[in-house]
């Protein structure tokens, strides 16, 4: 087995070229266990030197320098990718201020921007474009003060990109923000849209030194128009992880090496 492919990659189907083409991935995490490392790992996968795939990154949570530092530890230089036109980093930290009162058109404007970038990047043949959002709850806060509908509209439009240009859409969201709600429509809608849901949570059995949490990957794999692809439909996988200095170790429960 290829040593560079870990359990999460296998669960996502990275043993084949561009498995996420036209798919929507939702990463759900909570305060106790952040899921951003999954996002970092997927960034690294998309920007791997073996492919020509491109990434559009909407950063609501952190500045570029943060991702640059993290990805450098994982062995991927974001600045070089930026100059190679494989990474388009959209700094959204200031979106709230620049937007003014007309929030709806703000989201629409953002989408048009993404659409334009997708068209520009899509010139290279056999290139898969991934749109990543870190994270959705901050987009919700930035775009609207009370109504999450505009963000859902935005999400819907991003979903059209997956059909139209075969883009992948990867989003991160925090589940516990909605834990007090009876029916968190926003979160449920995102889960419904997603083909793959990855959930990062603390160990059910409590804190442990050598295990930092567990990941559950649900591959809903909607009925696809491309025949024969994606044998992992309706699969649910569960494994644990340990965050190390420059990488993540994944293992099945009870199989930790340390």
């Amino acid at each position, binding site marked *: 087995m290829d040593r560079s492919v870990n359990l999460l990659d296998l669960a996502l189907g990275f043993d084949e070229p561009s498995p996420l083409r036209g798919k929507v991935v939702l990463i759900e995490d909570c305060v106790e266990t952040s899921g951003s490392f999954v996002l970092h790992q997927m960034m690294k996968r998309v920007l791997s030197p073996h492919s020509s795939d491109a990434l559009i990154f909407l950063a609501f949570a952190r500045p570029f320098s943060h991702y640059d530092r993290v990805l450098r530890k994982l062995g991927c230089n974001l600045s070089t990718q930026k100059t190679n036109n494989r990474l388009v980093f959209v700094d959204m930290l200031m979106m709230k201020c620049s937007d003014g009162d007309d929030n709806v058109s703000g989201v629409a404007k953002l989408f048009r921007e993404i659409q334009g970038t997708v068209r520009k990047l899509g010139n290279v043949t056999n290139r898969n474009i991934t749109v990543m959002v870190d994270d959705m709850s901050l987009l919700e806060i930035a775009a609207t003060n009370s109504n999450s509908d505009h963000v859902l*509209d935005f999400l819907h*439009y991003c979903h*059209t990109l997956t*059909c139209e240009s075969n883009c992948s859409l990867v989003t991160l969201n925090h589940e516990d923000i909605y834990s007090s709600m009876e029916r968190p429509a926003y979160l*449920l809608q995102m*889960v419904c849209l997603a083909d793959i849901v990855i959930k990062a949570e603390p160990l059910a059995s409590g804190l442990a030194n050598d295990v930092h949490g567990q990941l*559950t990957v649900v591959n809903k794999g*909607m009925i696809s128009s491309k*025949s024969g692809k994606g044998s992992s*439909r309706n699969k649910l996988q569960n494994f644990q992880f340990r965050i190390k200095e420059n990488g993540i170790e994944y293992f099945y429960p009870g199989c930790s090496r340390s």
Partner: protein
Amino acid sequence: MADSIFRKLRDGGEEGELAPALTIEETVVSPFALDVSCYLLANLSSSILAGKSKSEGLVLVTFSRSPSFYLQFLKQKGIVVSSSSKWIRVLDCYTDPLGWIDQPSTGVTEGPSLVKLNKCVSDLKRLFSSVIDAGREMVGDGKTRFSVAIDSVNELLRHSSMPLVSGLLTDLRSHAQVSSLFWSLNTDLHQEKVTNALEYISTMKANLEPFCPSPDGKRNALENLFLAHQDFGKGRFHVRFKLRKGRVRVMSEEYHVDQTGINLSPISSAESVIAATKSLIPKVHFNLQLSEKERVEKEKVVLPFEHQDHGKSTEIYDGRRTLADGKTEATPLSSGELQADVVSSGKGGEIIYFRDSDDEHPDSDEDPDDDLDI
């Protein structure tokens, strides 16, 4: 049973009657309404093409998937749709429902094209007339009828209120040229009253229920998704028909979803339930259940508290001589002679016991020592 839904949709309603309507209900744990819609779509299309259906055309209103997805799907099923096809029209409410994308044309595009773009989803009156126009374009103004399929009303409900949406659906049902209508709904996304209202205006309801129903209701729809384990993709498919006489009939089947789509099979009664529960038991190193042989042997064991002499009634000694005892031992035990005789003959001992009084119940709750003066 899924066939009977399909037949009802194919045959449509009688003239002057409301068209039969089907709600396909899914949840977050069993998100397979799309598979059911695709199944119905493929069947309806082939029956329309074969001329077996009462309707002669199909208007597909897409909200959750792009038109190309459906056309590709039909192609996979061997139904080729070209732009000159006279039996299908797609109303595209997916690509640009709010008019965000800059394009020269506004609103519904003109011309007899296969796919029409609708850019204003919240205007339901316009949506209604576009559906009817698209249908008329295929079958003409006369009495010929067509079917309508809406792939997800969730998007509609997000943009307009529930009364408006149910109004639109009722308008479509009561239109003379609409022969049948179906739509799908994710029940987790909306209030229960929305689900109930849409169920009420439909003649059939198809419900996808996962094998492991949630223990605490709908609140933890998300957590249930992660608890589904290996049963994700399998479950029960319930259909409720409202018959014309006013009776209601409920039928159930099992579904299993794989790469090719949804597969329905009759419920294999108890076996499947046992199989389902067996698979729920975690794999451990010891046996939680008995094998058949062990079970038979276990049943043979007579427990000590059970009466072992067959044919005799169960007796529990309460300290009194029973009637039967009285007959066999006619000699009064109080006779001293007999006692001495027995003792002297060395035949064995005997315990002689006289109850103090017959009033006292042998198992009375009274403390027997409460009159002690210590």
